[in-house]
């Protein structure tokens, strides 16, 4: 029983990363109708930035947790203005190619400067111990990640549900043309929303630095699963992406613990295929109204 609870807890921690990344993708897709393939690269930049800040400027983890999302969010906004914005009228495939190319460029820039080996990054001392959760001990850092990610997800949900910006974003996500027809300047919000999605990826990256290998390719593997998460949750569905993020984390952890090795590897994609067969728009997505 303890073992099962531990695995569950772990699944939620992995899920927290998926949820943060999927949430950013969902927000961006909702507003821009762009599948941001560069999301994994920004996750990597978040982690790498935290490392560079610490190694070269002595900036601690807590500051990195603020600096990286803000900095990369601004970079994201600049990229949106400079490139992505110009392609939104065209076939979505163009932006897919653009963001994929961006991924390769960002990865190679980091690779050129720091090489492919992983860089060392330690958790802040105050999160180094374990917490007694009654039935078992758990590393403090993991408990912190879970708590932090849940707070961020709830925060974003509150923002979307209870603020004017949130209302515009939700409306524009559901019916962009109609929203415009009501005289709301949707375009004004596109760039900040893109930056916000990128900031979430950067945040996940900083959180990952102390427990994952920090190297230029760290986002490339992860992003494949995150796309599966987004598809399972329903493209553009905010709640769906978060729920699917935690759900997939749990399925992976349980799979590794209780399923045969070969199945654990493919479980996510089996679930994705099943969901697509049963509900092509994803668990929480809705079929797009014909334009």
């Amino acid at each position, binding site marked *: 029983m303890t*073992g099962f609870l*531990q*695995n569950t807890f*772990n699944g939620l*921690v*992995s899920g927290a990363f998926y949820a943060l990344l999927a949430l950013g993708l969902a927000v961006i897709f909702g507003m821009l109708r762009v599948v941001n393939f560069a999301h994994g690269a920004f996750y990597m930049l978040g982690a790498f930035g935290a490392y560079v800040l610490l190694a070269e400027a002595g900036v601690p983890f807590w500051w990195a947790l603020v600096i990286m999302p803000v900095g990369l969010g601004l970079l994201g906004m600049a990229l949106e203005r400079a490139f992505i914005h110009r392609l939104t009228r065209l076939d979505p495939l163009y932006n897919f190619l653009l963001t994929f190319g961006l991924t390769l460029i960002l990865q190679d820039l980091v*690779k050129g400067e720091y*090489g*492919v*080996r*992983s*860089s*060392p990054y*330690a*958790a802040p001392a105050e999160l180094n111990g*374990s917490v007694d959760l009654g039935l078992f001990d758990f*590393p403090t*850092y*993991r408990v912190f990640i879970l708590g932090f990610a849940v707070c961020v997800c709830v925060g974003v949900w509150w923002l979307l549900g209870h603020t004017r910006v949130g209302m515009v974003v939700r409306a524009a996500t559901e019916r962009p043309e109609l929203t415009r027809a009501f005289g709301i300047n949707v375009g004004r919000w596109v760039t900040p929303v893109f930056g916000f999605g990128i900031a979430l990826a950067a945040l996940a990256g900083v959180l*990952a630095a*102390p*427990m*994952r*290998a920090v*190297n230029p*390719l*760290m986002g490339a*593997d*992860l992003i*494949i*699963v995150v796309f599966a998460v987004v598809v399972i949750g329903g493209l553009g569905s905010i709640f769906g992406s978060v729920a699917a993020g935690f759900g997939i*984390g749990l399925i*992976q*952890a349980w799979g*590794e*613990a209780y399923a045969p*090795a*070969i199945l*654990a*590897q493919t479980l*996510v994609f089996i679930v994705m295929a099943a969901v697509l067969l049963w509900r092509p728009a994803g668990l929480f997505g809705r079929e797009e109204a014909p334009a």
Partner: protein
Amino acid sequence: MAMRRTAGLAAASAAVVLVAGCGGGGPQASGDQKLTDDKIVLGVLNDQSGVYLELSGKNSVKAVEMAVADFKAKYGDKAVTTNISVETADHQNKPDIANTKAAEMYDRRAVDIVLDVPTSSAAEKVADVAKEKQKLYFNIGAATTTLTGVKCNRYTFHYAYDTYMLANGTGRSTTEQGAKNWYVLYPNYQFGQDMEKSFSAAITAAGGAVVGKDAAPFPNTSGDYATYLLKAPTLNPKPDVLGTMQAGAELVNVVKQYNEFKLREKGVGLAVGLMFLTDIHSLTPDALAGTTYTDAWYWNFDARNREFADRFQKETGTRPTFAHAANYSAATQYLEAVQAAGTDDADTVVKQLEGKSIEDVFLRNGKIRAEDHRVVHDAYLAQVKPAAEVTEPWDYVKVLKTIPAAEAFRAPSADCKM
């Protein structure tokens, strides 16, 4: 200084060639020295953009270039030829690309010997190409024992290490030192599965037991190993040591999380299947302090290694891994064999190499086994020092014991039919 000398030498030899050419002698003029073409080309085929970039990659090309320069400096105008060049290609760790690139090197780029080739599946493909083209191939970067087993052939030599050497060194020594019960964690692909088999065999042979083993997904997209790390201390009997067969970035993930879950404090030690100097650098010595592993070569083992490491650092700005030193050694020994044979004809060079005993900066008590072309040499059981004991950059390891060449590698396999 060294560079100026080399440049001077090159200019001098160019002059010699020019004079010889003007004299109307032609390439065949100088007695019994006959090359199949008028040059020797060494081809380094390895990963120059992916996960093995640092542990071998472009710096191995540098190492081979150092070997060529040293060879020219040693023999001067007595060298079989001074027209020696180094070609290189990136195989991206993909077997199909390795296959094409190796064939292209042999056929179109006049390469006489292919060196390095990490990644077992790619290494096997190149062994087939070497056999078909009847050209030499020294594998350094790959671990699979199939190169001296089912894939062995007249033109393929396995130079630096293999899964047996790693398992025998780490698995056997650690068990003999009292860590009887093992939990083995391995990535679920060829290398991982080979390593698991080799380790389990070595552990059992030394009187230990594998109380649990798990295949982790490969690549592990979640980057998380918590499931296995939580399971380890709860096994019955409790394992004394966790043997992880993960490599590169995955190894970094395992070790970070091993520390996070405080397994050492819970009485589960750590042994690593395959680790390079660059991995220890990534993780910092403190994250690995006390971890044992088997090394094929260590830069600060003795004065001779150190002298090479100093020269290597001047060229590349970093300390050499065992793969770098092995590439240097392999290129040197190939050139020496050509020099001794007086020709680069592959079959003659193979005869020159087979059974040869070698002592150089990488090979200690080295011998090229004629039966299966395994190059045997001393290996080392190494332990990572705690940061407090690290007195200079990159000096992360102390050698616990030397595993003699005769014991370090497996006996020739019956699978190998030359």
